[in-house]
């Protein structure tokens, strides 16, 4: 998309001209004619530029071929249909000379085509001197009229032919193997050669094509002008080069499309038509063109250097968010007051695990958790002292859940949703959704699957934190805070559907205890919402918790009918204030390195329990931050609360107070007669 910038500048230029200069509909015809002739040259030049070369001799090839067609027709009486076929062949022959010198002899394209520009023009002059006296008699063939002034289904012949050739060229360049080879050669010759692409043949073919197109353009020029002197096509190469650079085709190769070159050609022709309409001297046009070429060539150079940085800068667009009141958690003796209830939870896997975002326990008491290196660990119950790598996901494993058959479902950042079978093999559940129709950005991949849970009918609800960032760059979403996320349902047959679109960073997903709704936590808006999946309110979203003092992360069911949730970060007065300053946040991302960005307080260890109706029951912290500085997920199982942290090197296991223990098996999908809840049962 970043190539759109120079092109849009060119379009603005042409719109400005059309507005300022009294160009009318009648000029459209002239413009189309002009574009048709030079447009073929532009296509040829684009192909050569994309292949990493340059062809300055296109004007001369056009001139020679134009003269040759007249000579063949009037002097030698060659039948016109044959002449029509021979014109591109003659052009291709001249192009082959270029190709041979550049591809085989390996001379530099610029100097070679500069020399052939002069040489071919000399051939044209020789032809003129030898034959022009015999060209006096005009030609009467119908084919000349057809090519010059005829129409195909109402469109003038040259324009129709140009459009057909443009479409073919575009499809070839972008969709065919030849076109891919050409583009690879242009962007990195050495890599292309190492990958087995025949570089010489590609480059050779580019010059032949350029020559053939120039030859055909010469035929059309003869049909249109009928000039029998050698000056046909003089100076065309500069005009076409300007047009092509305007269209965003890079002079350094590997980037460009013929459609854009055609648009650039339109812009240049509009400028030319404006100079005619304004009755400006031809010299003005040449000077204007030179200035425009200089500007766009510099832009192309600078753009190429800073392209990635600009693309990155353009892509982050922080939004302004209104935040509610902030609860002060340092005030003593409130529900939220910071405490040290989590501090002493004994660690599991200390020093083994690196970054387990979530965990799951099976019936046998074995503990499974993720690892930022893409692994799933398994710790043998009941004491979880021994651990080994159980499965390898190939991505960043995040949320865990048990499916109806007792296999472990893992939301893997970068890969989608995977299912881990009893023997440790992984299989893909889903990684694609239908692309949203009006989005420029291709959001059909599930890039950042965060948390998931299973509904009673067996469908899986998975949250995608953001369709614009990847799991490794989650902090960008903190800064951007826009509705880039969505909730996706994976049906039992494997098809996917986006059930909530444009949600602000959905994170925790939890099926409610009655199986009739899905709770979704929005990290960026500090709230928890409920999506009804059955009953009278099916499909509606309603709030459960609002104005939380922190950024909610994963959610899971508690055994007494409530829910546990953790905070990945706490709101601070400054982070709240910055929500009102998107320009400042954008400036921050542009001018400061990532380490220095202001973020909410991510060093926080906080877990809360809330009811179905949105009442917070208790809040547990590790105020020392020594052991569990960031808890991203809590799972309750048989009286213990397992603490996972995506930046931590351990899991924690906290003994629950007796008042918190209930009778519900938190791993079982609510309202189902689930046969088994974990694949350790399958082993039995």
């Amino acid at each position, binding site marked *: 998309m970043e190539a759109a910038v120079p092109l849009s500048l060119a379009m603005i230029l042409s719109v400005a001209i059309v507005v300022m200069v009294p160009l009318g509909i*009648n000029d459209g015809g002239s413009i189309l004619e002009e574009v048709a002739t030079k447009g073929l040259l532009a296509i040829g030049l684009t192909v050569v530029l994309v292949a990493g070369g340059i062809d300055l001799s296109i004007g001369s090839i056009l001139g020679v071929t134009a003269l040759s067609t007249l000579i063949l027709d009037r002097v030698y009486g060659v039948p016109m249909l044959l002449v029509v076929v021979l014109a591109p062949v003659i052009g291709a022959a001249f192009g082959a000379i270029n190709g041979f010198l550049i591809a085989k002899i390996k001379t530099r394209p610029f100097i070679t085509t500069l020399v052939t520009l002069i040489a071919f023009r000399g051939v044209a002059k020789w032809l003129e001197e030898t034959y*022009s006296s015999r*060209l006096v008699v*005009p030609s009467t063939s119908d084919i000349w009229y*057809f090519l010059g002034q005829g129409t195909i289904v109402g469109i003038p012949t040259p324009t129709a032919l140009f459009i057909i050739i443009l479409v073919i060229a575009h499809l070839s360049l972008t969709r065919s193997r030849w076109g891919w080879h050409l583009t690879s050669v242009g962007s990195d010759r050495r890599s292309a050669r190492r990958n087995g692409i025949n570089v010489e043949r590609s480059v050779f073919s580019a010059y032949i094509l350029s020559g053939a197109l120039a030859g055909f353009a010469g035929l059309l020029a003869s049909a249109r002008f*009928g000039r029998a*002197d050698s000056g046909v096509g003089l100076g065309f190469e500069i005009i076409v080069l300007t047009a092509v650079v305007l269209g965003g085709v890079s002079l350094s190769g590997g980037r460009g499309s013929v459609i854009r070159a055609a648009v650039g050609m339109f812009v240049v022709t509009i400028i030319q038509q404006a100079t*005619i309409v304004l009755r400006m001297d031809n010299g003005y046009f040449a000077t204007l063109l030179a200035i425009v070429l200089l500007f766009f060539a510099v832009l192309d150079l600078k753009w190429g250097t800073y392209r990635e940085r600009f693309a990155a800068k353009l892509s982050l667009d922080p939004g302004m968010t209104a935040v509610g009141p902030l609860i002060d958690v340092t005030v003593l003796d409130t529900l939220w007051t910071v405490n040290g209830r989590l501090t002493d939870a004994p660690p599991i896997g200390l020093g083994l695990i690196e970054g387990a975002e979530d965990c799951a326990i099976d019936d046998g008491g074995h503990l499974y958790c993720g690892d930022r290196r893409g692994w799933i660990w398994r710790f043998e119950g009941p004491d979880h002292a021994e651990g080994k790598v159980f499965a390898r996901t190939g991505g960043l494993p995040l949320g865990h859940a048990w499916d109806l058959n007792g296999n472990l479902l893992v939301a893997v950042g970068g890969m989608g949703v995977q299912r881990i079978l009893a023997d440790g093999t992984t299989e893909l559940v889903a990684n694609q959704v239908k692309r949203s129709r009006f989005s420029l950005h291709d959001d059909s991949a599930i890039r950042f699957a965060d948390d998931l849970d299973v509904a009673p009918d067996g469908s899986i609800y998975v949250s995608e934190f953001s369709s614009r960032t990847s799991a490794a760059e989650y902090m960008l979403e903190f800064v951007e805070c826009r509705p880039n996320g969505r909730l996706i349902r994976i049906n039992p047959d494997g098809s996917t559907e986006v059930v909530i679109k444009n949600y602000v960073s959905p994170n925790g997903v939890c099926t409610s205890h009655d199986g009739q709704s899905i709770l979704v936590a929005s990290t960026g808006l500090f709230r928890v919402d409920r999506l009804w999946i059955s009953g009278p309110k099916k499909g509606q979203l309603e709030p459960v918790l609002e104005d939380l003092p922190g950024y909610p992360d994963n959610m899971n069911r508690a055994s007494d009918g409530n829910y546990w949730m953790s905070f990945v970060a706490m709101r601070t007065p400054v982070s709240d204030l910055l929500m009102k300053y998107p320009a400042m946040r954008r400036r921050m991302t542009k001018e400061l390195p990532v380490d220095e960005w202001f973020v909410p307080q991510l060093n926080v260890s906080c877990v809360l329990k809330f009811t179905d109706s949105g009442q917070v029951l208790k809040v547990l912290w590790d105020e020392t931050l020594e052991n569990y500085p960031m808890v991203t997920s809590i799972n309750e199982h048989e009286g213990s609360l397992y603490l996972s942290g995506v930046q931590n090197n351990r899991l924690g296991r906290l003994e629950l107070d007796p008042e918190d223990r209930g009778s519900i098996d938190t791993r079982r999908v609510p309202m189902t007669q689930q046969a088994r809840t974990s694949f350790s049962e399958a082993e039995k």
Partner: protein
Amino acid sequence: MKIKTVAMIALLALVLTGCTSGRPDAAPGNAAAGGTVSLTGGVPEVVQPLEVRQLVHDTMKDKRIAFIPLLYKGYKITTEWGVQLQRGFESLGSTFTVYDSNFDTDQMVRIIDDLIKSKKADALILHNPDLNVLTQQIKEAQAAGIYVVVLNMTSNQSGDVFIGADLVSMAEEITNKAAVDCKADGKNQIALINGPATDPWNVLYEEGVKTAAEEQGLEIVDTTDSKWQADLASQQAATMIERHGADLCALMVPWDVVALPAGNAVKTAEDEGRVAKDQVGVYAIDSSSDGCEGISDGLIRASIAYDQSGIGTGALLAVQQLFELGNAPGSQRSVAYVPYVVIDKTNMSQVTFACYFGS
């Protein structure tokens, strides 16, 4: 597969039926538009003098005439025409505009295309650089109801009126003059410094010179194409002197603008002793004030002056007639030639239309 081929053939047939060759049929054309009184068929049989004047003014009022020469500013030949046209049309209330292409054929074609398509002119006055290049434009203009007057350089496609000079006869006459001088010197070799091969001036001039040369027993030893550029003409003249030195007696150049540098080259060669003095004479066609200076300086020995201001006035008259008669453009075509005479040092100041100023 079969369905595919049938479909392709059907599509192709559809496309072909939609194709036209573009050769225009007899132009339906509309009568000359504009003006409050459309004089179709000319002036009435019996009419008062004041009425006549009013009729002319009414016809010509607000007509837009465009003159698109290949060269204009700085070239006396075309400015001479342009000046007459401007004076005439402006006094009649018409709008006269000159579009200077500055020797760029492509630009000229584009301007004419633009004028025709945007209907910005009611009459075009053209000056062809090439026999064929404006073929299509002339046709289209006439089909669009625009009169076409062609000056001095013919084209294969006829306009409504052509006004120029009988170049073949002029060429013959100047060659005869050269023959006289050559025979007096006892030499018979002449050379041509002509223009581009498809240039109408070139074609006719060469024809005339060849005919006269054959008759007179002169031998044409060299022909070059100066592309009407002064520097090329100068070089080519010098080369010819180099190559044919002692036997060359005349250089035939059909335009004074290129004859002068050729004459200078001869003079330089004479000064450098590569050729005998007064051996090689330069014979030109057309004589602006620069050309006459050249004659008096001895650079040009003789020239044929033809009535340039007459050509301009002729165009002025032709356009008025076309509008008054009101026939459809392209329906009736005619050609007219202006007078000419041989001039040299002896008589050039006495000929009215020689040594014109272009203003």
